[in-house]
Structures are given as C-alpha cells and as structure tokens.
C-alpha cells in the first residue's frame, strides 16, 4: 500500500527575472517500507520536490497538485496541522551535516525540543530513553547526548541528524543528499546506517541524490528527473539493465567503470535547459541523440509500460 501519493505536482518559483518551473506535472507513489531513489542532475528539481513534501519551500514558491499522506492532502492542511506532521510522520535529513544542527544547543536539547513539540507531556526519563535508543540505533554512544554539535565530526553529526529524524518513528524519511558532503568512507558508513534502519524500522525512505552508485546500493525503485520532469521510474534492476529513456541510458553510461580499458569519461553533451524559458516540446530534446520531429513540437505524455513509467516519444505515438 502506498503511504505517500504525489499527484500532478507543479512547483514554480517567482523570481525577479521570471517564473522558474522547478517541478512540472510529477506523479508517483511511495509504498510502505520501500526505499525510493530520486536521481538527476543539479537543478533538476529533486530537492525542491523533497522539500515540497514537508511544505518547507521558500515564500516565493507556489505548489499545485496533491501530496497525499495516507490519503490526507498535505497541501490543504493549515500551517499548524502541517507543523505537527513534520518530524513526527515525515522527517527529513539534509545535505550538509556541519550546519544542520543548532551550534549552540546540546544534542540532548535537540531531542528534548522535538519530543516536547510533539508530546508536551513526555517525562524527562522517557525522553532520555528514546533519545538514547535512537542514538544507539545509528551507532552513536548515548553518553554523547550532553555534547554540542561542534564536538562531533561530520559523519557523526549526520548520524545524530538521522537519530533525531527517526526518534519519533516517522512513516516517511526524506534524505536529501545525505552523504554528498561526506568523504567516501564516512559516506559508506552512513549508507550502512540507513540500510540498517530500513531493515529494522517500519519506514519508507525517499533518497534524493545525484549519485547513481548510492541509489543502486540503497533504493528498490528509482525515479529519474530531468529539468523538473519525471522522465522514468522503475524497479532498480530493470531500470539499470534496461533503461528506457535516453536520458537514463546516458546517465548510466556516464558512471565511470575502472575495469574497462576505455578510461575516457563519458558525459552527456550540452546542459539542462533554462527553466525560466524551457523548450516547447520534450525538455531533453536538445541533448537527445534519438530526437524526432515530434519531440521538438510536443511534450511527451507519461506512459506506463508494465510497472514502469517513462516520458518519451520513443514509446508510443501521439494518438495512443
């Protein structure tokens, strides 16, 4: 059963120089206990999408569509009801662990604040107990509750952030580039922590990243985004072995493979379109080696092929 349904989501930023269409007509479901990866280049709208689920976008953003959490449309909730969902039903961890904890608050007080916000009657020993359990589950010594954030390394801070976000057992955890700011060894440790949590806790994870390797390691399904559009979605092995969309194919080809003699790095020529003034037809058309006439004229429809979703004119004609 799906815990989260995103339906026809549009997100625009109003800026002085024009309207940026950051997310356009994106729909997908997040099943219970699944890990869904969202991948794409910088600026493709994946972080905007993640932040929009918690309704934490800046003031100049407008959202239309539906975000359903167990059938309740989050976009229709008032601010107070939405606030109560954050941290309790849906939690989020961020890219830069160095700056995501309040530097002048002890780790303990971060936990206490979270608990007090969602359950004002919670007793102190109970709070310490839950906080200690959460820290233990991510491999941090509960004694360190009394420490300040600056007494932790980057990797340890990210563990603390994860412990904070799972302490109240949310149904959905949004991880926005959780390892991007960390070195590879620590990156691997954090991935292990997240994997363990997935096995032991009853929770869905939305993993937002530009790193195809991390997605392959963590996610059961992957959504590929390009220029604010969801271009392909499918089960991880199917998608890796048989990418349908030309963008997915080139994205996978651009992963360097050290075993091959051919050491030249492959890349996708060109750059993503200007989202203030995107091309008329398919957004990927200017960079696509398979582009047809229709791609230039009309935006492709999103099609279901088996249990996969793809948005490309290569799969089906206009009238289908």
């Amino acid at each position, binding site marked *: 059963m799906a815990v989260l349904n995103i339906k026809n989501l549009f997100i625009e930023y109003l800026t002085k120089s024009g309207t940026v269409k950051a997310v356009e007509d994106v729909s997908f479901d997040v099943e219970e206990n699944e890990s869904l990866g969202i991948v794409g280049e910088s600026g493709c709208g994946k972080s905007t999408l993640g*932040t929009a689920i*918690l309704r*934490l976008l800046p003031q100049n953003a407008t959202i239309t569509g539906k975000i359903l959490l167990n059938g309740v449309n989050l976009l229709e909730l008032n601010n107070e009801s939405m*606030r*109560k*969902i*954050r*941290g*309790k039903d849906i*939690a*989020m961890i*961020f*890219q*830069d662990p160095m*700056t*995501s*904890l*309040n*530097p*002048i608050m002890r780790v303990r007080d971060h936990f206490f*604040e*979270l608990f007090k*916000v*969602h359950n004002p009657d919670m007793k102190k020993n109970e709070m310490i107990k839950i906080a200690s359990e959460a820290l233990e589950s991510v491999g941090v010594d509960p004694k360190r509750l009394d420490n*300040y954030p*600056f007494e932790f390394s980057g990797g340890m801070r990210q563990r603390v*952030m994860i412990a*904070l*976000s799972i302490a109240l057992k949310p149904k959905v955890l949004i991880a926005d580039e959780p390892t991007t700011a960390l070195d590879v060894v620590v990156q691997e440790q954090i991935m292990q922590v997240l994997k363990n949590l997935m096995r032991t806790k009853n929770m869905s994870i939305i993993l937002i990243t530009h790193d195809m390797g991390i997605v392959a390691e963590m996610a059961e399904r992957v959504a590929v985004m390009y220029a604010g559009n969801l271009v392909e979605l499918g089960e991880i092995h199917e998608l890796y072995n048989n990418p349908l969309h030309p963008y997915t194919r080139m994205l996978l080809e651009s992963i360097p493979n050290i075993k091959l003699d051919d050491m030249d790095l492959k890349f996708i020529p060109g750059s993503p379109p200007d989202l203030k003034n995107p091309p008329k037809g398919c957004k990927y058309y200017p960079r696509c080696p398979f582009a047809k006439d229709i791609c230039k004229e009309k935006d492709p429809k999103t099609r279901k092929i088996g249990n996969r979703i793809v948005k490309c004119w290569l799969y089906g004609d206009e009238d289908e």
Partner: protein
Amino acid sequence: MKTYILTRIGLSIPMILIILTIVFFVLRVLPGNPVLAMLGPKAPPSVVKAMEHQMGLDKPILVQYVDYLKDIAHGNFGQSTVTGMPVLKELMQKFPATLELTIFAMIVAVFIGIFYGTLAAYKLGSPLDVSARIYSIFVYSFPVFWFGLMLQLIFGVWLHWLPVSGESSPFMTPDPTHTGLYVVDAIINGQWDVLKDSLEHLILPSLTLGIVTSSIFVRMVRANVVLTLSQQFITAARARGVKEKTVLFRHALKNALPPILTIMGLQFALLLGGAVLTEVTFSWPGIGSYLVSRIHARDFTAIQGTIVFFAIFVAIISILVDVINAWINPRVRY
C-alpha cells in the same frame, strides 16, 4: 569558565593602564593651564607660581605621572583643582543619575531593537521590513538635542503630560538614599509618589536617548537574524515541527546574539559618556554635564578621573558581554 573570566579581567588591566597614560599625557600636552583658568589671566606671576607649587604642577612630568598612578592605586582619583573635593566622591554623586538615564535608555533601545529587528528579518521584504529600514536610517540621522527638544515641545509644552527637565520635582527626592538611583531608592523606601515623579522625569530623556540608539540596534539585529535565518539548522528545526516562534527566537535570534551583544555593550558604555547632549537638553544632573563644566575649568584631575572612571566601566561592560557570549556560545567557553 572561571579561567576564561579571570583571563578576561587580566587582559583588561593593561588596557586601562594604557588609557590612564594616554589621558595623562594628552592633557599635559594640550594648551590651557588650570591655574590660569582658576585665577584668571591677570593673576600676578608669583601667585601663579605658588599655586602651581601647591598643586604639584611644577614637578617634573614623570613625577606627576607616578603621583597620579599612586592616587589611582589608592582608589581615589586625586582632588579636584577647582573644588578641592576628592574626584571620586564627586563622580559618585553624579554617576547614579547618568547610570539611571542610560539604563532606561538602553531598555527602550534594546526592546525596540530586538523586536523590530527580529520581526523585520522574519518578514524580509514585507512592508514591516521596509518600515524598519526607513526607521533606522531616519532615526539615526536625528540630532539628539533636536529630538529631545521636539519631545519636550510635544509632551511637555503642548500636552503638559510630562516634566521637561531635571531628575525630580522639588522635595521629591528619595530619602534616605541607598544607591543614588532615584527609582531604586524610591522602591526600597516605599515612597511611591517619589517613584512616580522620578519615572515621569525619566520618560522623555530616556525615550530620546533610547529611540536614537535603537536605530543602530534595529539594523544590527535585522542583519544578523537574516543571516542566521538562512542557515540549514533553521530549515532542519522547521522540518522537526518546531514552532515558528521558537525557530525565530530560540534558534535564529539566539545564534545571532553574540555580535549584537557586543555592539549593545559598547553602545551602553558610549551612552554613559555620550549622554552629554541629552543631559544638557534635559538639565539632567549627571556625569556628562559634570565633565563639560570641568573641561571648561581645565580641571585636570577631574577630567582624568572621569575618563578613567569611564574606561574602567567600559572594561567591566566588555567583560560582562564576553561572559554572556561565552554563556550563550559553547565554542567560546570550551
């Protein structure tokens, strides 16, 4: 924490010594002879000589310097060349009035600064924010005495709501005195009519000084809170469901406080010495008026004493600010 405070105190001793020395020599180098200022330009040279000898001004300057340091080490700032009274005693008579005015002005300024500045930062770009920016530029450019006069005119002369000058009405001083601060003494003595009278006299001068000072605070607070509000831990706190009020004050403002407190501390010290214009405008019998009159009389010891007194006060306040900062920010403490 204890070592931190002790180090801070230790560090301020050389600072005060340097100020002592500079003040001493600058006064000696500047034109103007205290004896001539006292006796008038037509005094016979023999009398001038005798007077100089009596005041120790004919000794070599280094000997005078050592005498001066000795006086301060003994805790008295020497005797006024004009009145012959110990300078410290005179200062202690005048200081409470200034301190009272400054404290109330700071309360006004900090209150306006913190709330207006924080809300403006929160509602960045809104009419409230624009009004805060206009307020701070506009008020900053007010000359203090002009603003004081306007308040006197409106609330004193036209509306007759408040007294326009002095620290109290006749026969309305607290008795007995404890601290010299009228408001505090009146409360201790339970003299409520005196308290009311003192507060009425305080309102206009402290509003004048407070509002003018608040312009700097509004700008400082706004700029610093804007900066902290853009940080990741603010979004992270919101993502945990923390209430907006808590996000704004506990997370954003508290992290923005260290630079703000430093400026406020300096401003407090500046007000103590710089309340001169306000004191003169409102005939406030404080240290500012005292210093002005003693400068006219070339009263070396009184000027030195006043400046040293301020220097020590500035040092104490900056230590206090540092201690508060260390208390807020663990990275300073550890």
